[in-house]
């Protein structure tokens, strides 16, 4: 690839709007191997946001857990449709936010009884795995939103890029 040469077919008939540039959109199904693609998407978005390796791993974990829940509880391990979208939002106050949205067509969920327990300690006897996924998602993400739609669910995870805060928010 000689990417430095000017091409005379360079006019782009359908230029992207500015806010589309940092956006990825992915139509997948809830087969477990798709977590590998999700991870690659998170890694690309995390690199664009200059996250550290540790932050990247955490964000990838939260996205992985949400996808696993949709696969396992939403679609009961049967292949189902999921749309995944991710974009980087530049706020006016200089903060960057990484947004991840899953849209599924599984039965709508009532999450009101979920124990999201940020503060719930894990006692010696409390080592059953159930509820760990949700706890991890909440401990990593700054915003976890669920919207019940007439034909499925929409899940939004927002991660505020912390390094931007350190560099001095006005």
């Amino acid at each position: 690839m000689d990417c430095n040469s000017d091409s005379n077919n360079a006019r782009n008939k359908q230029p992207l709007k500015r806010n589309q540039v940092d956006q990825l959109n992915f139509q997948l199904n809830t087969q477990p191997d798709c977590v590998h693609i999700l991870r690659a998407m998170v890694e690309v978005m995390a690199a664009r946001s200059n996250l550290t390796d540790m932050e990247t791993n955490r964000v990838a974990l939260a996205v992985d857990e949400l996808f696993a829940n949709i696969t396992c509880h939403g679609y009961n391990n049967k292949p189902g449709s999921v749309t995944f979208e991710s974009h980087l939002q530049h706020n006016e106050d200089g903060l960057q936010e990484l947004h991840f949205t899953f849209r599924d067509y599984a039965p709508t969920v009532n999450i009101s009884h979920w124990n999201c327990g940020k503060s719930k300690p894990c006692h010696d006897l409390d080592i059953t795995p159930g509820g760990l996924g949700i706890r991890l998602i909440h401990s990593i993400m700054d915003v976890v939103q669920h919207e019940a739609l007439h034909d499925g669910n929409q899940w939004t995870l927002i991660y505020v890029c912390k390094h931007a805060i350190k560099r001095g928010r006005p």
Partner: protein
Amino acid sequence: MKLDVTMEHQSAGVINLVVVGVVNIHTSPRLRDALKPLLTEQNKEVHIDLAGVSFMDSSGIATLVEGLQWARQSGGRFVLHKLQAVVLDVFMLAKLDTVFEIAQPLIEDKA
């Protein structure tokens, strides 16, 4: 996409399980299939070498919790070794870093 699990007999009743790859909903059934048969009366210690594991999610942790429960019931030892920083971080987020026996160097204090 890969997960390799290799069993090494250390000595009578002492087993090393060397895990290499990523542990997620796609691959954790393989870890579970390798671990389950080791959780028997015959074994006294099961050591899991996680040096080659670059990622672990709650499906992997749930699998390891089964080993922990076996240890409590049988009076055996279930020890995790050489966790990469990002994997140890997940155990800390899950508040399970103090629940598991985690030894960063591999089997130095064998009983």
